[in-house]
């Protein structure tokens, strides 16, 4: 190319190989840019899953002790085959020795229960878990 370029005044244009290389580089760049959207989509999906798991866990905690009596035990279930939930209700014991009477309600007919909800799901092969806990007063077990 160089000898002829000299003779014709240096305007020989690009060779086919050069054009193809340029197009390939442009293609790679655009592919990289389009992957940004893919990453954003995955991040959004992970976020949406976490929000759904939170709604599910909050709903389970709200319903505990209302739709069925508050008594110690574990219940499990699934939501749309994607989220597995588990509600664990247990008598709450205060282990802090400085306030031994804080949860001592044994002379009453009520008891303090600890309600723990665990929602687990898979996000692109990674196992995710969300745990919410609360304390609620209920009737003392007989």
């Amino acid at each position, binding site marked *: 190319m160089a000898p002829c370029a000299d003779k014709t005044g240096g305007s020989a244009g690009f060779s086919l190989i050069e054009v193809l290389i340029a197009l390939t580089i442009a*293609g790679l760049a655009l592919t990289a840019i389009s992957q940004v959207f893919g990453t954003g989509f995955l991040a959004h999906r992970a976020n*949406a899953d976490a929000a759904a798991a939170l709604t599910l866990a909050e709903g389970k905690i*709200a319903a505990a002790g209302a739709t069925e009596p508050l008594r110690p035990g574990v219940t499990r279930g699934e939501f749309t085959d994607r989220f597995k939930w588990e509600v664990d209700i247990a008598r709450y014991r205060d282990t802090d020795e400085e306030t031994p009477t804080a949860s001592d309600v044994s002379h009453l007919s009520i008891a303090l229960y600890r309600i723990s909800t665990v929602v687990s799901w898979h996000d692109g092969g990674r196992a995710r878990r969300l745990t919410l806990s609360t304390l609620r007063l209920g009737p003392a077990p007989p």
Partner: protein
Amino acid sequence: MSARSSRFYRAGCTAGGFTLVELLIALALTALVSLVLVQQVNLAGQGAARLTERATRADERRGLEMLLRRSLADAVLIPAIDGIPAFVGGPSSLTFLTVVDDAGPGLYSVRLALDQTGSEPVVTVSRRLADRSVLPRATDSVLLRGVRTFGISYFGATSPAVAAGWHRHWENVAELPALVRIVYRTADGSAPPPIVLRLHNGG
């Protein structure tokens, strides 16, 4: 390369231009690469549009949950104002009185309802001060768009004599329901988990 030069190019100059075959191959390759590029750009565009749509849905859902957790959780049951009962629950609409709202202190009447009059069903929320003589105007806003199904149910005992259970209606009951559950499905087919809310003054 030397064989190629002697065959395709005139002596003395190596820039004899492309042959027809070379040009055709070049055009075909350029077309192929351009096709892949255009497809990539299209895919990226579609991905961006879908992401925006999903983000909007997530925002709407968050708005609904925020409203419920802030306002409905603090619903109060007081005697009727202007003849309007404090809590009227139907299968796809709900009106309640609450002390908590974004607009400031006061007693508010909030109505959450499925509106099917437009081209697509939407869930709207209407808020106004409970005392209409102060400010009669209500502020309406759309909470959810593109709703396929929307159902509200209420948990509690409708009278002391009956056991607590889930109901489609909650009207003229002496107490607020213990729980309110909202189940909905959007037009794109997604079914988020039901929103189950405990009313602080309920049960």
